[in-house]
């Protein structure tokens, strides 16, 4: 598998996988590091990141955020993305871990 694909796969702790644009996922410093070929992590070869601490519901929301961020890259008056209350704490932990 080539090292630099345009898409990467993110896999949640409960086995859900999400295919997202590499460029939008790389706003996360943690994902960027995992995929950096020069650091030699396995993820950079398979273009796949597994998150043992993030479940499918939360990771789905994270992926939604990647697209939200991409879409509003340079726009003014950005509307807030909807965040379900019941996911707050888990999402906060995930956002902290991924640095997004």
């Amino acid at each position, binding site marked *: 598998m080539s090292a630099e694909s345009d898409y990467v796969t993110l896999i949640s702790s409960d086995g859900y996988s999400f295919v997202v644009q590499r*460029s939008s996922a790389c706003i996360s410093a943690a994902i960027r590091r995992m995929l950096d070929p020069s650091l030699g992590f396995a993820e950079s070869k398979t273009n796949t990141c597994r998150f043992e601490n993030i479940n499918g519901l939360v990771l789905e929301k994270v992926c939604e955020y990647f697209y939200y961020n991409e879409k509003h890259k340079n726009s003014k008056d950005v509307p807030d*993305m909807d965040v*379900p209350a019941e996911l*707050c704490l888990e999402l906060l*932990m995930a956002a902290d871990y991924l640095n*997004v």
Partner: protein
Amino acid sequence: MALPSSPPLPFEDPPSSPPLLPTLSDISFTANAGRKRLHSDYGSLSSDPLFSEDTSEFAFHEDEEQPKRKRMVKGPWWNMARRSRHDLRRSMIKKDGFRNVDSGVWMGSDDSLESFGSERSRHEHLAREEVVKQRSRIDATEDDPEGFAARVVQGCVDNGKEMIDLSGIGLTSISSAALLPLHQMIRHAHDDLTQPPSEDQYSCFTPSIQLFLYGNLLSSLPAELFKLRNITVLSLRNNSLEELPAAITQLNRLTELNVAGNRLNHLPWSVLDLLRSTEDVCKVSLRPNPFRVPKVTIDKDSSKLMQLDEQLGDDQHPAASAISKSLEARFLRGRQTLNGGDEDATPKKKRNSREQLIFLAPSRIRFLDSEGSVVRPSMTAHPSGEIDWEAPVLEPQSPPVTQASTTAPSLFELVLRSAQESYDLRDVTALLPLDTPSTVSRALEQAARGVEYGNDQCSTCRKPFVMPRAEWLEYWFHGHDYYNLTQDAILPFKRTACSWACAQVTSVGTAFC
């Protein structure tokens, strides 16, 4: 001396004779003569610290010497219940012995007072009630200034008294609850209570609250204060405030604000609006405070600082003198702009008696990541790792290169905003799992503060946010048009921004009056 009906006294074995107690023969316990006698006896007891001098100044000192005794007999009766509750809490925390919380009398643990305690306290309790009436206000408050403040507030509300004097009573904090009754304050202008007030009568009900909190030890202000929109005069002079909440400008009826003599090293950006508001002129007293001043680091190793108004000396370092000259030039340009508009229009001339505000320079911008840590572009890294708040930056500043959007809020921020709407965040940090990262718990605390005081506003686009993404100081000249540019005429305002895109410093040449 005979003691006719005296109770059996533990004369035989006073374990360690308490130095402050009078000899037993001096005290009469007879029912009729007792009280009067007791009183005069107390007057003669020069060694007794309780009534022999103004205790207010020496309260702490005495507490050290006689903590238990002091607690037992000090203060008016209406403080007793409250103090007992404090005691209860304290003893529950300390688990250091049993105390009878109802009487305030010490039980068991103190040999020197045990045998005398209950009898004496009963008499002293009676004596106290009389003495307390003559005591000065500060005496009455020294044990529980906040409780006293709450009663003063309630008293003023009950009497429709708009001037609330809580000055110099040793307040270290004041709760929102203590100020809450002020929302009920109405001006007594409408006497006929059988008829509803007419429109203009109604406006007479709106009070103009003057709240004097000067001369206390306040280091923070309760959120409720900023919701009391009918405050017109607020004196916080001579307290220990290190930060003035931006919410201060929510008090939009203020005609006088005094924050002199605190520990402020900068002002919130919103105060600039207060200073330049053209309609209702609010008299604002800001100095003295330990405000930051623009300085130039000349020798990085010894971090020797040179202040900019030590200028025009021949021995001045070239770097410092260059910056001094630039600031001076910006100042003169701003003044020229203000005075230039003055020549052709007379109304403006009148306004010129007001103080001028001229933008001088910003500090370096601190760009923050979503969790509030400084993102330091390597080239501006200061040897100490800190960004110097006091060094004025004359060249334009741009954010570090990033792949993330510089306008959209972070996911972290979005979740915090949602949490503010969905949860009661007041005690949330206590409920968090133990392995919660400190960045998360800190952010949730910040979100909880935002709910209480209102979220900070972006100083560029005015959108509210929980976590700032950039912050910097701006130095502005503030003074009359005959003032020169000296340290004393420069104010530091702290700006925050919701996004890196909003981290835009004021443009050079901006000036108001």
